[in-house]
């Protein structure tokens, strides 16, 4: 049985059907004029050989081509793209089935941050009353390591609401190079979670090693096709409207291997996209459709997700403002556009501007997590633990996020109202009002343990004390102490023999000797 996710029965729609059509037509216009600049020769050639109007803009050291994509080519690609995408998992119960026309949401971690935020607690004494002590969390940033990535995957394996795993931290150990980063980040993730693992690729040269590693885990090429335990995310389009040379190479090669891939575009309203909603939407939709078109031209039927990471610019720095309300509006619009094409959507929420866990981070992430979930994206990259946009990862924050996702999931359960329930209720009301004390308490018991009543906030403090951080920290350590199901020793041994560049310290069986 695959994971259930949470079905949004009546998804929130921000834009009307007419507005969806208007954005679609504007995107078609953009793809024809001005079209996209491709810095990738192969992509330009693929488009050209399939009927797109391709002209050389410049040659020499930095060649590029103008690609104008006709509407028929885009619609044909949308038609051939899979409407259902399966993301596999080491544990078959963690498989994710995403249908483009079904608003069933799966919550996934990510993205890759450079900084890992450690937490410890210091005790402070009140000056005027030395007997009064409080414990206050302190946060210490440092560069992320492969050991951190293992810890993060380990905890996310045990977080109830996490459906899949995108690596959360960039591994920057001294012995990690461009040539061994990909195999180590995929192995560290796959070895510490049995859920689906998605990642970007640092070096195309490592693609076959990563794919081979996955084949060894599931038992072969065909088995990986049947149960794709890994998938890729590529930012092949740089806004506005440019195919990047290296990431497009990666994208084309992933498509050739038939593995699931996210076409991700991340324009910033105000700088790399128009500041107005109509503008950023028309552009991001054109960029994603261009990527989807390329995927189908390379390999018809490539399982592809409509990836949207739009963001509004901050007015003070012109940096990203993921915590802005508009960012959630754009994401919801993208969910609707993807549903219009019936292609599963990769959407974004929970990314915040706050730099440490606290009130700002809670407000920003809960707001976007709630509203974007309500729109019904299939793959919600909801940034467990991310802070400072996508610069910092904090494991404590990920544990806190799990608590509010439990609330969101509970909120979206269907209403239990029907003839049977009404009949039972009428009987109950008549019985209770006839008693002297007129209280329904006795009737709580039958539903109290059936899952019909939501749990209290798990990190609630005593009396007036706010102990949220301390309690979440305890929970985090409890989860780290729980075992995870590593890849078995025989397969691990094969992987270490066959895949070059893996760090010996990641072999848990060797480490135990």
């Amino acid at each position, binding site marked *: 049985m695959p994971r259930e996710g949470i079905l949004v029965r009546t998804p929130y729609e921000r834009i009307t059907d007419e507005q969806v059509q208007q954005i679609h037509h504007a995107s078609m216009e953009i793809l024809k004029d001005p079209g996209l600049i491709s810095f990738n020769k192969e992509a330009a050639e693929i488009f050209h050989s399939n009927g797109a109007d391709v002209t050389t803009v410049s040659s020499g050291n930095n060649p590029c081509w103008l690609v104008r994509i006709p509407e028929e080519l885009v619609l044909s690609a949308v038609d051939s793209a899979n409407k259902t995408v399966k993301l596999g998992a080491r544990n078959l119960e963690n498989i994710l089935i995403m249908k483009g026309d079904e608003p069933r949401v799966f919550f996934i971690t990510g993205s890759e941050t450079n900084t890992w935020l450690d937490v410890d607690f210091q005790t402070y004494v009140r000056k005027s009353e030395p007997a009064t002590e409080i414990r206050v969390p302190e946060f210490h940033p440092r560069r992320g390591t492969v050991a951190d990535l293992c810890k993060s995957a380990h905890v996310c394996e045990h977080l109830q609401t996490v459906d899949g795993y995108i690596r959360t931290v960039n591994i920057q150990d001294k012995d990690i190079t461009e040539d061994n980063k990909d195999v180590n980040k995929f192995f560290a993730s796959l070895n510490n979670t049995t859920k689906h693992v998605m990642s970007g690729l640092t070096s195309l040269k490592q693609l076959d090693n990563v794919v081979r590693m996955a084949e060894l885990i599931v038992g072969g090429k065909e088995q990986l096709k049947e149960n794709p335990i890994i998938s890729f995310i590529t930012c092949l389009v740089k806004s506005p409207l440019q195919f990047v040379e290296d990431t497009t190479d990666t994208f084309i090669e992933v498509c050739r291997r038939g593995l699931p891939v996210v076409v991700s575009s991340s324009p910033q309203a105000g700088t790399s996209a128009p500041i107005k909603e109509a503008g950023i939407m028309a552009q991001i939709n054109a960029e994603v459709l261009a990527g989807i078109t390329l995927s189908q031209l390379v390999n018809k039927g490539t399982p592809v997700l409509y990836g949207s990471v739009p963001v509004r610019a901050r007015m003070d720095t012109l940096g990203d403002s993921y915590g802005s309300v508009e960012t959630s509006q754009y994401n919801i619009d993208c969910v609707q556009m993807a549903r219009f094409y019936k292609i599963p959507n990769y959407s974004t929420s929970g990314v915040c501007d706050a730099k440490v866990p606290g009130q700002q981070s809670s407000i920003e992430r809960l707001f976007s997590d709630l509203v974007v979930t309500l729109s019904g994206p299939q793959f919600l990259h909801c940034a467990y633990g991310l802070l400072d946009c996508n610069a910092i990862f904090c494991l404590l924050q990920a544990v806190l996020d799990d608590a509010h996702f439990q609330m969101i999931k509970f909120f979206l359960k269907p209403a239990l109202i029907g003839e049977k329930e009404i009949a039972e209720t009428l009987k109950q009301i008549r019985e209770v009002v006839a008693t*002297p*004390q*007129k*209280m329904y*308490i*006795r009737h*709580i*018991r*039958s539903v*109290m343990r059936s899952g019909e009543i939501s749990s209290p906030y798990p990190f609630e403090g005593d009396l007036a004390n706010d102990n949220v951080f301390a309690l979440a920290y305890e929970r985090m350590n409890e989860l780290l102490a729980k075992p995870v199901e590593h890849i078995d020793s025989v397969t691990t041994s094969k992987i270490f023999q066959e895949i070059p560049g893996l760090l010996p310290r990641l072999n848990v069986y060797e480490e135990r000797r």
Partner: protein
Amino acid sequence: MADDILKLIQENVIQGRITKDDEGFDDGMAGQPGVTELIETALAQKINPQDIISKGLTRGMAIVGEKFEAKQYFIPDMLASAQVVGAAMDILEPHLAGAGAKAKGKIIMATVKGDLHDIGKNIVSILLRGAGYTVKDLGNDIDTSTIVEAVREEKPQFLGLSALLISTMANMADVMQALKDAGLRDKVKVVIGGAPVSEEFAKSIGADGYGADGFGAIRVVESLFNANAA
């Protein structure tokens, strides 16, 4: 035979089943005798009412209390079991005098004048009955004079006063004064509770105790009861 039925009473207290129609906690209980039917059977079999209380009801409540402390049970579980004990005591009370047993004590409960809120007071009443006290609940929005008159007539050991509003808590002080004026203040222990009141307020009006919640109220009453018995 007696042990079997007392064990069943104990289990049905834990299950919170008053009659055979109650579903209880575990599946498949509906239709089997509840505590009231079991007590009628026990009395018909001449089982000592004091044994029914101590080996059936009290033991059952003790197990519920242990489960509550262990966070396996919650307040609705405690209240359901307390309601069962209360219903059981209604049947047993007429038999106690004949068996030489003595009821724990009588408590009058009331929400004071101007206040229509009675959930807290009702919960405390259920818990007190579950703890073996005889409870006379006057209701809500009760005149000071009615409360004083009830104390004079019923001669309870305790008076429990409840208020939810800041505007009505002052009426608790009026009740205290009226009890003094009627010469009844030293005849009854007064315990107060409700959202706006506090330990400090209880002291300021001369009450004997304050319960922050239902279980706090029971602890205060038990403590005053034991002090009085010693």
